[in-house]
């Protein structure tokens, strides 16, 4: 079966960046990793490209976290038009956004790795069977994991918010 790459790209790339961003917490890097995953998919043409992309993306993010030597070097061949001016136009808004990210990151960090992974995969649009396959769970266990992860995330975020207000 041939892959409709345009449709796959349109439907998956934003989800992939969203998924990766919660792992590396750097929007540019998340985009770079998503691009790298797509380049690899274009080379390999996997039979289940969406699930494959998320697998590769998860591995890339893990490698990113592990890599001792990091070199910030974007894919120069990819001319992403980043409007740097728009980013810095409102430093207060930028700061507020960063704080929000930090709050979410801290709340996510309270989850176990598996719970976090399942939650992020679901949030990125993966189906229960695909999540089950990727994580190695039964389909039924995906719901149980999501229920626990969502509850824990909400509790942790509320606690962080309360601490923030108290200080």
């Amino acid at each position, binding site marked *: 079966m041939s892959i409709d*790459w*345009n449709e796959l*790209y*349109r439907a998956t790339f*934003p989800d992939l*960046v*969203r998924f990766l*961003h*919660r792992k590396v917490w750097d*929007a540019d890097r*998340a*985009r*770079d*990793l998503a*691009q790298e995953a*797509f*380049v*690899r998919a*274009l*080379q390999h043409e*996997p039979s289940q490209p969406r699930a*494959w992309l998320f697998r*590769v993306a998860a*591995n890339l*993010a893990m*490698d990113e976290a592990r*890599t*001792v*030597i*990091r*070199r910030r*070097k974007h*894919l*120069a*061949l*990819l*001319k*992403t038009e980043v409007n740097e001016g728009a980013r810095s136009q409102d430093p207060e808004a930028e700061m507020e956004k960063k704080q929000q*990210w930090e*709050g*979410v*990151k801290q*709340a996510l960090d309270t989850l*176990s790795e598996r719970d976090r*992974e399942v939650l992020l995969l679901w949030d990125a649009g993966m189906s229960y069977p695909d999540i089950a396959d990727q*994580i*190695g769970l039964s*389909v*039924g266990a*995906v*719901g*149980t994991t*999501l*229920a626990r*992860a*969502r*509850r824990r*995330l*909400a509790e942790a*975020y509320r606690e962080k918010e309360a601490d923030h207000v108290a200080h």
Partner: protein
Amino acid sequence: MSHIDDGTIHAYLDGALDSYPASEGARIRQHLESCQECNLRLDRERAIRAEAEAILDRSAPMVQMPPLEDLRAVAAHRTAAARARGLSRINRWSWAASVVLALGTGWMLRGQVPGTSPRALMLEPVVSDAAGLPGVGAPESEDPAGLVAAEDESRSRAQSVQSGSEAGAVGSASDGSASDGSAPPAVGAGVPAEVEGDAAPAAVQTDAGKVVLGGRGARAAESMEMVDAMVDATGGEEESPVQGQPASPSPAAAAAAAGAQSTKVSPPEDLTATVRRAAPESGAVAQPLDQPRRFEVAVAENRPGDQPARTQLVEAAIAGQDRPQSGSLVVPGLEVVDVVWLENARVEGIVRVRQLTEEGDTIEISHLPSGTQSSDLDRLESEGRTELVAPIGDHWVVLRGRVAADRLSAYLRLLVGG
């Protein structure tokens, strides 16, 4: 019918009941329609679900999509670069197999028989150009997922390897008591192994740190320089299987191996490199190791906490198989991500290969030299990964990955020819 559990309620809210058996899905829907208690819980869980989604939405980045055609161009560039060199997918990585074997045999440097000179190693087949390889040999402008080491560090690392081999030789001389053919170490991840007669590797101190042999032709060439440096330090050689057994002491074998030279060839299909090592000087005969026919494999699935909670012997033996006469740390057909000589506070010479499975999972294949314990490898740091520890003689091969144990076991069989 009993009440619906929270997980099933979330599956219901996520519209995932279609993934359940049809009869079960129908029963759940029917129960939720009629059970007041479950409906209260449904409302509660719906609120939690909405709250969690709102939290995650707060961290959503602004997504800018580069044109797909740009990505296609990068993919085509990589593919064309590989094809232009006439390398098949496997062959593209055969250099890595060779280098791994050369590096991976650093452990042999310390398996010294008393009274003999330090052993050194060489390898036979080498393809040193890996440019254009996805993930590692990417074009100059690419840095896929930070997997490529900084160029400026590459050279110093190359020097580290060279000095590492020298120091390893010194270490082997000081080891004195080499592996003496005792039983293989205790099986099991995280279980300290007792290797009788192995000197503490602390005697081997070098500046050899983590060495990344990633991709570009120049770096691969440097790798070859490292290997050459190791080879240059050797004397006459005799063949020895990869698994670190001493070569056959038979005069015929020694004569056949005498005068063996390092050659750089590009075997089109064969990934099985032959590792050779120097024959001991002064006529000393290498002491053969015990060659257990039992090939044991332990699997540990990590759990939160410091030690794997479960260690299970899953495979007792490869019946009727002699120990393999050759091996590799590179699973044929899988893309190599990188090859690293791991630095460890206690031991050196641990070589790790990372490869990408067809499904996109990364597996790690580590070789721990003689005198080490499987616990010398860093413990599994993430949940859900599987570790397979295979003591082979007096050394170890450890496979890790977020894949099922039977897959790892299959990969191991590919490596050792079982």
